[in-house]
């Protein structure tokens, strides 16, 4: 720590930090544009000028850009210096010389960093009287809107899109005062992280197109802290609602998880909540078809079904909350509860739980992932299964070169100098997957092969690290030397990380990945082991129960069950159609609680409208093992309520198993008491009774408009806000206006800081953790005892003469159950196809695009062939997309040319 003087008062700052960050950390307001806490300093905008005096005797001082000025002991800084202030005002005046006066019609208005900074500098009158420059805007796809005239050329967009996220199709073009940020031609932005441009851009150049389609100002949005449900990462989000409609999702900073960024699936998947496919009322299937029934009627019928004395089976879901799954388990009894995994998923999930609970390797937070200095990915197409983890890995890949650059005396935050010195060099990041993935370009070397070969490659690495592990024979010298190289790189690292997961569908890959991490631990390394699981509560569901649906099917076939209750699970995605139909048919009554109309809902006798994440509160456990609570954002007009509450109501109505669950916290506490893994779960966030100065935390902003007019078409009286028994939040503007504990931050705002940049004001220091620590509670810590190595090494892959190994190919858009109901994302989904190696085209006598007949698991379907780079001959990739038949993968199948090409 060093002491510096700011406005002649002494402050402690971190040595070598930049002056801007140091001043912001101490609560000073300095306007800035190009600096970003995750992307650091560029020195381009010149907005953060301050005056620095060498020492006590220096009276003149000099103007410096605080973002590129390292703090030094004894430095005297003045932010209020008249010359510095005048210069900052000049900079805004320059920026505003071409900026349009279109704030009233700009989506950014009210949360615009440029507005805030303009106010901060005091610039009010524009002397520039000449014609403003104008640009042509581009079509960038259904997610991000482009309005270049507003651009202030801070270069943040390209620094994020290319530098941070590895995108290629957005760049800075032209020069002087004609610099243009866009694509070489109109077209959908290719990066899975494109939505972050909306928050990275300090003004309204890049805005959220989904918000635009049902626009509301930030101050009019009702918000609550939430957690993304579209994959297993558990990114923290802030959904915003107005008039009963979810308007957008923005990032909720959590330094240990997503930091400042979200993926496009997570940011734009929310539209499923507004989907016409939503189940909004209880549905009853009768001989005459499906009809809406009242909540009371539905409950009466449902409780009748479960209360008749017949046995009840309950099927939960890896995308349902801990509380919902636990409520199902309570309803049916532990022995009759299934978490809703397919047989194959269940085996993978229980293996991952075993690896996490019994092994010595720690599952790191994403913050720790970002600081890893050697990474090995095994079998996982990370960008498509856990996109924000992929973004974190991209940062980890830069750590090696960063270290080298810092040896030249370049501070890590001096982004342009770091880029010069590192020249885009890659650190030790190795990726192994069945085909070339979007992560490959960040890797220094890649390995492509079918899952067993990935497992064998990993086994060879593990053996390099630990000679007591089995020898892997039959490797080419190339593979063997790559294995040696990887082992060496992992050993040389301080914080090596192994990433694997369910993505390749292979237990052998998971076991081999664990062996590598454990072998590193045995060598005294603090190795991390990240196991990607695909759904928002996959790990939570696996920790409750990991029997597969096959076992449920078998039990149902015994014929003892009368009623089946399913919550938030389309079993047709997890069982083959015929099995699912037979399974459902073996019950007299099927009750389904869900958000959207899917095949399972269609088969239900009674469907209960389950509240989505935005309409309910609950706990999810991400694949790190971090329990995170999301809070209800708004009260929907329909009959939706949380699945667990439907279950409680049913149990209450039967009178048989009266639950003393008055609020969600009671369910959480019960789960914690009953399931050992959940022991600490109640501490993930403050309970519903939490108050600050006796007040609840308002979901609505203090600037919300139309409070008394909103419902004036129905009644002139202002209605009482809905009571919320489950959370410390109110559905109103009233309540505590200051900063709540970190898990309860409903939105980021500070006086003078209306944009997302206000996050800084909620952090312990600029760019650091939220005050009081980042939200979430880790449930699983590694055992210190020795490593329970897996001993088996799979035999190597042999391409078959007639058979093809079909491997799963998860897709960012299309492979997740709920986000496919978001129309903008659905429009970006690929059409079903079968991926083959280009080298196999001849064998199949096809060209790209020709239809191929695929036969597997006794099913047959035709799909167009797409060449997938990196695929091994004899292996075909099956994308997990809507419209594709459910297959348990990997599996052997047969591919043939469907029909002769037209001549």
């Amino acid at each position: 720590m060093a002491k510096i003087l700011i406005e002649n008062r002494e402050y402690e700052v971190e040595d070598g930090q930049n002056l801007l960050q140091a001043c912001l950390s101490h609560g000073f307001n300095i306007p800035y544009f190009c600096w970003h806490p995750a992307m650091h300093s560029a020195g381009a905008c010149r907005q953060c000028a301050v005056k620095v005096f060498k020492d006590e005797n220096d009276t003149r001082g000099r103007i410096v850009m605080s973002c590129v000025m390292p703090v030094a002991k004894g430095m005297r800084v003045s932010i209020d210096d008249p010359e510095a202030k005048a210069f900052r005002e000049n900079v805004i005046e320059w920026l505003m010389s071409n900026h349009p006066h279109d704030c009233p019609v700009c989506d950014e208005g009210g949360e615009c960093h440029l507005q805030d900074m303009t106010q901060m500098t005091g610039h009010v009158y524009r002397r520039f009287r000449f014609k403003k420059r104008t640009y042509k805007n581009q079509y960038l796809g259904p997610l991000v809107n482009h309005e270049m005239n507003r651009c202030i050329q801070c270069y943040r967009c390209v620094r994020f899109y290319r530098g941070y996220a590895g995108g290629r199709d957005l760049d800075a073009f032209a020069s002087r005062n004609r610099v243009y940020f866009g694509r070489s031609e109109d077209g959908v932005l290719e990066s899975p992280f494109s939505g972050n441009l909306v928050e990275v851009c300090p003004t309204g150049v890049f805005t959220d197109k989904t918000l635009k389609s049902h626009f509301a100002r930030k101050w009019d949005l009702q918000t609550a802290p939430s957690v993304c449900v579209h994959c297993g990462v558990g990114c923290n989000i802030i959904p915003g609602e107005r008039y009963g409609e979810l308007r957008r999702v923005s990032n909720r900073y959590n330094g240990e998880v997503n930091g400042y960024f979200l993926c496009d699936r997570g940011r734009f998947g929310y539209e499923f909540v507004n989907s016409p496919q939503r189940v909004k009322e209880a549905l009853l299937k009768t001989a005459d078809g499906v009809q809406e029934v009242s909540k009371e009627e539905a409950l009466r019928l449902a409780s009748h079904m479960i209360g008749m004395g017949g046995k009840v089976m309950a099927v939960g879901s890896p995308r349902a909350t801990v509380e919902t799954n636990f409520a199902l388990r309570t309803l049916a009894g532990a022995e009759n509860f299934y978490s809703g995994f397919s047989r194959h998923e269940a085996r993978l999930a229980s293996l991952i739980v075993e690896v996490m609970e019994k092994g010595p390797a720690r599952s790191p937070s994403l913050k720790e992932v970002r600081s890893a200095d050697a990474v090995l990915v095994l079998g996982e197409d990370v960008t498509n299964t856990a996109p924000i983890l992929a973004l974190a890995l991209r940062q980890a890949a830069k750590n090696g070169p960063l270290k080298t650059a810092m040896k030249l005396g370049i501070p890590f935050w001096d982004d342009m100098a770091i880029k010069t010195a590192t020249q885009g060099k890659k650190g030790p990041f190795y990726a192994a997957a069945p085909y070339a993935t979007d992560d490959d370009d960040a890797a220094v070397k890649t390995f492509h092969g079918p899952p067993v070969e990935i497992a064998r490659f990993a086994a060879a690495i593990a053996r390099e690290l630990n000679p007591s592990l089995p020898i892997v024979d039959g490797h080419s010298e190339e593979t063997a030397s790559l294995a040696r190289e990887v082992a060496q790189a992992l050993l040389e690292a301080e914080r090596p990380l192994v990433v694997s997961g369910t993505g390749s569908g292979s237990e052998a890959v998971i076991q081999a990945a664990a062996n590598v991490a454990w072998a590193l631990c045995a060598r005294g390394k603090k190795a991390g082991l990240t196991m990607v699981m695909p759904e928002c509560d996959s790990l939570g569901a696996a920790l409750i129960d990991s029997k597969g649906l096959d076992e449920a099917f078998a039990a149902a076939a015994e014929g003892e069950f009368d009623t089946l209750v399913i919550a938030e699970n389309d079993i047709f995605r997890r069982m083959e159609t015929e099995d699912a139909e037979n399974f459902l048919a073996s019950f007299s009554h099927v009750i389904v609680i869900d958000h959207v109309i899917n095949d399972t809902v269609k088969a239900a006798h009674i469907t209960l409208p389950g509240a989505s994440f935005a309409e309910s509160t609950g706990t999810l456990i991400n694949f790190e093992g971090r329990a995170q609570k999301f809070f209800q954002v708004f009260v929907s007009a329909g009959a939706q309520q949380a699945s667990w509450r439907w279950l409680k109501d049913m149990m209450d109505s039967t009178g048989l198993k009266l639950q003393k669950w008055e609020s969600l916290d009671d369910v959480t506490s019960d789960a914690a008491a009953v399931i050992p893994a959940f022991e600490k779960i109640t501490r993930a966030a403050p309970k519903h009774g939490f108050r600050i100065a006796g007040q609840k935390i308002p979901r609505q902003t203090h600037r919300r408009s139309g409070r008394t007019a909103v419902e004036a078409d129905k009644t002139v009286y202002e209605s009482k806000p809905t009571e919320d028994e489950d959370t410390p939040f109110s559905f109103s503007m009233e309540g505590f206006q200051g900063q709540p504990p970190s898990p309860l931050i409903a939105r980021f705002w500070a006086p003078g800081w209306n944009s997302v940049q206000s996050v800084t004001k909620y952090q312990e220091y600029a760019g650091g953790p939220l005050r009081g620590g980042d939200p979430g509670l880790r449930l699983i810590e590694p055992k210190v005892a020795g490593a329970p190595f897996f001993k088996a090494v799979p035999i190597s892959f042999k391409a078959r003469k007639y058979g093809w190994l079909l491997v799963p190919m998860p897709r960012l858009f299309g492979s997740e159950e709920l986000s496919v109901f978001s129309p903008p994302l659905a429009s970006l989904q690929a059409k079903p196809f079968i991926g083959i190696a280009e080298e196999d085209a001849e064998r199949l006598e096809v060209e790209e695009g020709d239809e191929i007949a695929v036969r597997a698991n006794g099913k047959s379907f035709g799909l167009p062939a797409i060449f997938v780079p990196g695929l091994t001959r004899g292996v075909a990739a099956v994308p997990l997309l809507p419209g594709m038949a459910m297959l348990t993968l990997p599996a052997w199948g047969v591919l043939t040319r469907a029909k002769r090409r037209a001549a």
Partner: protein
Amino acid sequence: MEGLNEKPLTALMRPDKAALSLAEYERAGGYQALRKALKLAPVEIQRVVKESNLRGRGGAGFNTGMKWSFVPMDSDGTKYLIANADEMEPGTFKDRMLLEGNPHQLIEGMIISAFAIVATEAYIFLRWEYALASERMSKALSEARAKGYLGRDIFSSGFSLDIKLHVSAGRYICGEETALLNALEGRRAVPRAKPPFPQVSGLWGRPTVVNNVETLSNVPHIIANGDEWYRGLSRSKDGGTKIYGVSGKVKRPGLWELPMGTTIGEILEEHAGGMREGLKLRCLIPGGASTEFLTEEHYSVKMDFDSVMEAGSRMGTGTMIAVDDKTCPVGVLRNLEQFFAQESCGWCTPCREGLPWVEKTLSAIEEGRAKPGDLEVLEMHGTSLWIGRTYCALAPGAMEPLRSGLKLFRSDFERHIKEKGCPYKAH
């Protein structure tokens, strides 16, 4: 040869302005300095050049030997030497003469300089418009390669070097040494942050020295004749001769190699022959467009880095633009600022947004559309587009003529505003 002792850089040049061939250059003693240098220790060459007081001829005037001494000598891996031949400073054409007239002098200077910093790869970064220089340089490089003066194990010294010619895409900012590096790497020609300096982290992140063509052309002569001889060529503290130039409405515009420290008056009156008949000198810009105006009262100022600085301007490239009394000074400034606004790279706000504003305001004044407050706007830019406030020196350079022009030609500005137009156009 007598001439070489007075005008080492230009004495050999052919009267017909054709390039000296390798044979001609060698006959006159060319590549002897290289042979000598390769027997010395690199640090010894650095010392001699430093002692010679050769200062960077691109305009900044930094001691060349000193600049080299910041290159880490213990670093393994590639180091680079780059000849900055991106001569785009308005009014400057001295490097062109050296490139076209005696390409081998530059090549020899580059090999010696590369050896001095143990750089094994070198580039000539050439201005796009210098097509003739490009042709002649390519030919000279082939000649040198064919003779083994470039390539592996030069003169059996164990030292290897190749020089590649890179023709710029043509932007003024590429002459800024760090923007040049970005351009050479195929990136946007935007200057880089300093520190780290190129000597530590330059081309492709490796230690790199960028020297001006004239600077490098001096090196063989310093090595051949010693630092004392070189200092003796000068009439001031800075070593050597300098290629001075004059453009504008003088009788004999051109270039002359003269002792460093020759006075402005001598260059303008004796060598350039003074102003054309009927014209008087209003002012001059001493070293390219981005220096402050001087006037007749500065005739006795010596053209060297320190003396011109003391007189309130910069020697810059040492090629003056003389402005006569019939030319509108506001128009001159507009012309200059239009150039700078157009050549801004667009990276930092003050330069990108400020220079077009300056240009538009000057145009408005020149064309009779002035508004109250316009001079204040210009003055604000003069203060705010200044060193440390902008990312690189382009905008401060652009402000040097403006700042001095606002003082020097105040009455001209006021007449423009009062008379709603350019008084010089009326004639």
